[in-house]
């Protein structure tokens, strides 16, 4: 074989190899595209019965909401699936929302089902940009539930309503037989007035925007997990349950046009909210793991359980998307408020790849942050 032949042979092999590599790469890309299409397909509930996953706030909940509730009630106000509906009445714009509370245990460090039920609905109104005004309260009580406990719950609701500047103006009571409920369930609905000019929505994030959280995440979820007493882990932690309407008002006053979207990070945590934003806005959200505020006790418990704090519920924290140039002002306004002292910019909005939340890990790698199917399940070993 001559030198030229040998070189030609080598070159040919190199070309073949390169082509094979390209084919492999494009095959993976094709699969990724196929998956993307599958994910955009209409949601269908495949289960015959409701499972606990349907209540987790993750993909199973989304599917149930879209395939059953949205299918049945479809209308332009419901369709955006925001935390509340916003509509005009006369010359005013109102926000309207409802939420049910079935937390166990009823009383936990830092709060109870009562203040949770008030703050949760107040927060859903606040993140719509509304000033919360009036709440309703519905109680489902189990036969045998101590009246003393009910008094504790209602006293706590009254205190929370006072703190948030709202009144409970109507209500309902039902009692069910022993064993048909777990002590006490509470439903609240709320009405608020949009008296600020903001234009908010989960679909309004644009490339260049900054993503801000209002404080350390995951405290409510971990507190509840520990309060159930199943884990034999002890930590000095309390729920973060708090009314956010003061914080949202301060933010909107500081930057009336810079705020694109606010969401309170309840079930499913910050990760789920970011996914909703990425999907609805058709953008990529890039998060820096190092920048996400997490208290050591929450991080420690999550490490032990193999759970990611990004998926753990908060009841007094919000995720905000603000226009890039307004980020400084917005952050300063949040930090000036007692409930926003720990606020931090955790990431930015990019144009590509649309619909994905990406994490730059503290270790220096990259990965996706997806929506979980159900509740985060502790790992085996």
């Amino acid at each position: 074989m001559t030198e030229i032949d040998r070189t030609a042979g080598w070159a040919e092999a190199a070309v073949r190899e390169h082509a094979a590599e390209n084919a492999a790469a494009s095959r993976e890309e094709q699969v990724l595209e196929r998956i993307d299409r599958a994910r955009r397909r209409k949601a269908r509930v495949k289960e015959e019965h409701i499972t606990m996953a349907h209540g987790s706030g993750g993909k199973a909940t989304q599917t149930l909401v879209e395939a059953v509730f949205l299918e049945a009630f479809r209308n332009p106000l419901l369709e955006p699936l925001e935390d509340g509906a916003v509509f005009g009445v006369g010359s005013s714009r109102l926000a309207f929302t409802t939420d049910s509370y079935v937390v166990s245990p009823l009383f936990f460090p830092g709060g109870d089902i009562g203040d949770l039920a008030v703050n949760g609905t107040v927060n859903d109104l606040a993140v719509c940009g509304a000033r919360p005004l009036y709440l309703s309260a519905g109680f489902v009580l189990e036969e045998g539930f101590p009246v003393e406990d009910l008094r504790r719950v209602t006293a706590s609701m009254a205190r929370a309503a006072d703190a948030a500047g709202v009144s409970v103006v109507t209500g309902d009571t039902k009692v069910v037989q022993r064993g048909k409920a777990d002590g006490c369930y509470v439903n609240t609905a709320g009405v608020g007035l949009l008296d600020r000019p903001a234009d908010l929505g989960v679909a309004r994030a644009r490339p260049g925007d900054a993503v801000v959280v209002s404080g350390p995440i995951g405290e409510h979820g971990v507190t509840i997990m520990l309060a159930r007493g199943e884990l034999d882990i002890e930590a000095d932690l309390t729920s973060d349950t708090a009314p956010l309407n003061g914080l949202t008002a301060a933010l909107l006053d500081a930057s009336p046009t810079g705020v694109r979207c606010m969401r309170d990070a309840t079930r499913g945590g910050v990760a789920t909210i970011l996914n909703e934003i990425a999907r609805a806005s058709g953008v990529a959200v890039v998060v820096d793991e190092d920048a996400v505020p997490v208290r050591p006790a929450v991080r420690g418990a999550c490490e032990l359980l193999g759970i990611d704090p990004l998926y753990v519920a908060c009841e007094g924290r919000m995720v905000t998307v603000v226009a890039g140039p307004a980020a400084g002002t917005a952050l300063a306004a949040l930090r000036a408020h007692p409930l926003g002292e720990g606020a931090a910019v955790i990431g930015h909005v990019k144009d590509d790849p649309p619909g994905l939340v990406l994490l730059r890990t503290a270790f220096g790698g990259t990965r996706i942050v997806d929506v979980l199917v159900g509740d985060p399940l502790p790992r085996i070993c």
Partner: protein
Amino acid sequence: MRFVDEYRDADKARALSARIASLCEPGREYKFMEVCGGHTHTIYKHGLEDYLPETITLVHGPGCPVCVIPMGRVDDAIHIAEQPGVVMTSFGDMMRVPGGRGSFFDSKARGAEIRMVYSPLDALKVARQNPDRQVVFMAIGFETTAPSTAMTVLRAAAEGIGNFSVFCNHVTIIPAIKAILDSPDLRLDGFVGPGHVSTIIGCRPYEFIARDYGKPLVVAGFEPLDILQSIYMLLLQLAEGRSEVENQYSRVVPWQGNVRALRAISEVMELRPYFEWRGLGFISHSALRVRDRYAAHDAERIFQIPGGRVADPKACQCGEVLKGVLKPWECKVFGTACTPETPIGTCMVSSEGACAAYYNFGRFSRERVREATR
């Protein structure tokens, strides 16, 4: 946070990454299998592949406890759970694993009492609190979790808790590795060895891999720097023409293992003649059952179980994925028919399964993401 952050230091990772790159022979492709699902999880969760040259491929092995449970055993467990008076207890990971008749979650929705526990001792607690119910623990996992199952059976026997039993599905890692080494369609350059399994069995059982198959194995910890260092140690062995068993995880793994734990296992359990592994088929002497003397705590003896074999769905290629022959995305149904919401195969269920890890953490085009995260 102490004992965590020092093993996730990005500066050290960059330094290791450079040393790894300098050890790679130009033009040579390397394939290393990480045996443990825990390693797979770490690799994806921290984005570890960003630190590796493209010539190194990590192949995800069979060491995901949930992934290797065959569908028939899930059906048997559900059959037990649906007997009157039974409380089934299970690790969280197991709850979504589908059998032929759905998963524990589905069975729970149909009315069975299935509780999630964090350890078999919690299951024993449930048995103490419910003396009129038969409390069954769904025992799964490799040698890592077998000792805690054995200790719990010993305690139940000592305390005379007659209403507690285990449905034993414990498997052993060595036969699975051997099955992979003997599989003709796979070429590996070395193993990132199991970490937690090795805390129990030690490093000696792997010596045949280095000696008889000529493949280096480095027992590795579960933090991202542990895995990077192990890959460096594997490359160093290859560069120096060695094939040995080395222990990167020496802060936790003693060379001779945990004798007390091994004694507890062998007191309570014995090897089964054969056991079916999801995707890998029947492997002889690869699983554990409860010994005769603890029959009173063995759910397989207490209940009439159907013991049927359920063939994996035709479209499912979990076996190829578990053996590392296919990458998750190369499976025909990956991400379309088989997703974390509606898993067909077990690899898509556990967060340690290769498919779930790729789907949840790695499902993106490297190039576009590099652009976005720059």
